[in-house]
């Protein structure tokens, strides 16, 4: 059929069969296959997670429907379950943590990347990375021994005295509260912000700094108006990493938030978070509906992190579009 002169194809099959064995041994195909499997497992695990949460929360979803999200009754005896106090507590403590940790962490990162001598910067960064690796139960202990008394004796009364006219700082001060949890979370997530932001700031090309300096800006202006904006995508990334950790943090929060399933506007009041309630009550969840409600809480937390991460992506996308820092 083929009128085009081609090389005799007898070499074809022999070559193919030999190279199959050879290809397996030489590793390219094998490596491709295995790395593909590993990569695909990410999707598999995510789907499995969602599937399990979805199936096991069926009872609760059928009974409460959307009301689960906005009712605030959490009563295992009468089997009434509403997620509002937990969603509220999770969001408030995470927001507080970021509110404190972002300026603090970014400031520290700027010092380490732009101002400190290299030796000091490296030494401090080593300590910061150690802090990021400390187990959260240790932070919980720190919270109980230091932050709870600090809020009860000093910070709480002071805030009540100064800002008592707002609903945010009213009521009795027990020490355990949204604010305490927010403080402990801030201490926990700041190392992430510091170490990632520092890396990103140090990766900003030097000619950006020099361009700013050569136009007659001070060192601070060069840092704040050129270097930080250049690095903003990475800095935002570090903040969202911190947010993800704050949202899901269980142990340390449980130890200092008071574990009261109520929505209270006052930051000095005790509260509860999703992760904390699942950890505390899962082992004693008698009854299928109780169990199912806890699983649905897990589903809510899963979706919450999903949505916030999606928003983070959008934000990063939007800001890079405008400035196109990283073409």
């Amino acid at each position: 059929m083929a009128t085009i002169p081609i090389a005799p194809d007898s070499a074809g099959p022999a070559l193919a069969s030999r190279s199959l064995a050879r290809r397996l041994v030489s590793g390219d195909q094998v490596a491709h296959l295995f790395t593909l499997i590993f990569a695909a497992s990410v999707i598999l695990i995510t789907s499995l997670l969602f599937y399990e949460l979805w199936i096991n929360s069926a009872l609760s979803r059928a009974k409460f429907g959307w009301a689960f999200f906005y009712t605030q009754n959490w009563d295992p005896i009468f089997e009434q379950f509403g997620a509002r106090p937990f969603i509220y507590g999770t969001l408030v403590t995470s927001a507080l943590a970021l509110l404190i940790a972002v300026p603090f962490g970014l400031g520290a990162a700027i010092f380490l990347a732009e101002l400190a001598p290299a030796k000091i910067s490296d030494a401090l960064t080593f300590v910061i990375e150690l802090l990021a690796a400390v187990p959260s139960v240790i932070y919980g202990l720190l919270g109980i021994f230091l932050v709870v008394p600090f809020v009860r004796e000093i910070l709480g009364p002071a805030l009540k005295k100064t800002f008592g006219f707002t609903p945010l700082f009213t009521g009795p001060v027990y020490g355990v509260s949204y604010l305490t949890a927010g403080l402990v979370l801030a201490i926990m997530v700041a190392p992430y912000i510091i170490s990632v932001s520092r890396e990103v700031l140090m990766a900003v090309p030097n000619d950006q700094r020099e361009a700013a300096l050569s136009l007659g800006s001070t060192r601070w202006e060069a840092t704040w108006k050129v270097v930080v904006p250049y690095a903003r995508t990475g800095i935002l990334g570090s903040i969202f990493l911190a947010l993800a950790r704050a949202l899901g943090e269980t142990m340390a929060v449980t130890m200092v938030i008071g574990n009261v399933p109520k929505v209270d506007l006052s930051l000095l009041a005790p509260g509860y978070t999703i992760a904390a309630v699942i950890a505390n009550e899962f082992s004693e969840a008698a009854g299928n509906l109780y169990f199912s409600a806890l699983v649905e809480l897990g589903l809510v937390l899963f979706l919450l992190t999903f949505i916030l991460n999606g928003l983070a992506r959008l934000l990063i996308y939007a800001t890079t579009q405008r400035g196109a820092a990283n073409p």
Partner: protein
Amino acid sequence: MEIPANAAATARVKIDMGIPAQNPEPQTPARIQIEGLNFFYGKMQALHNISLVIPANRITALIGPSGCGKSTLIRTINRMHETVRIARAEGTILLDNEDIFRLDVVRLRRRVGMVFQRPNPFPKSIFENVAFGLRVNGFKGSLSEAVERSLRRAALWDEVKDKLHKSAYELSGGQQQRLCIARALAVDPEVLLLDEPCSALDPVTTAKIEELLFNLKEYCTMVIVTHNMQQAARSSDFTAFMLDGRVVEYQPTARLFTNPSDPRTEAYLTGRFG
């Protein structure tokens, strides 16, 4: 301590520096006088007793092989070397008879602009890039007029006037470099330092920039470091040939290229080294 800057300057000129500071064009006023400049990176001496007079509203080129100290010299003129911790300069550099090491560094850099080897626009809009220097210097007046003037001087206005608020990264490499020149010009510097401004650009774009520099002589004095001898020959009025941290020869460009007085200059120009 309260010696007027000029008096201090004249006092220093009298000190014997070895090589006399020579103005290659005595009838043109000097904008920058470098006298007995020694420069060290830690213990390593990068510049040896440099003396140069840079005439106003002319283009002075610094040529020489890699590592001869051209970039170090140019970066000392706006004290950019101070960003390097171990760098240290000794000697005198006078800008309009004022000792630059006694000036406030931020104000010095406003007067002495700089364009870098690779185009380095900020990740901002074209407009904001040019306006940056004006903003940090507390410019009072119409920003948009000032931005337009700078872009016109940098021969970029016609190409970007319809997309001032687009990102500077959308421009081509040559346009980005002209944007960087416009950004430097915005603060009306007396001196513009150009550190191999065309090394990342193609020949057509390079020719455009050279033409632009020629037209800028009206507004400022330029010092250009270049690896490219043709570029020095084409675009500069004076050329200094540097070797191992020393100025070997400093002449009007035409004379240096056609009739160099030092055998080392001739050897370099004819391509025997470097």
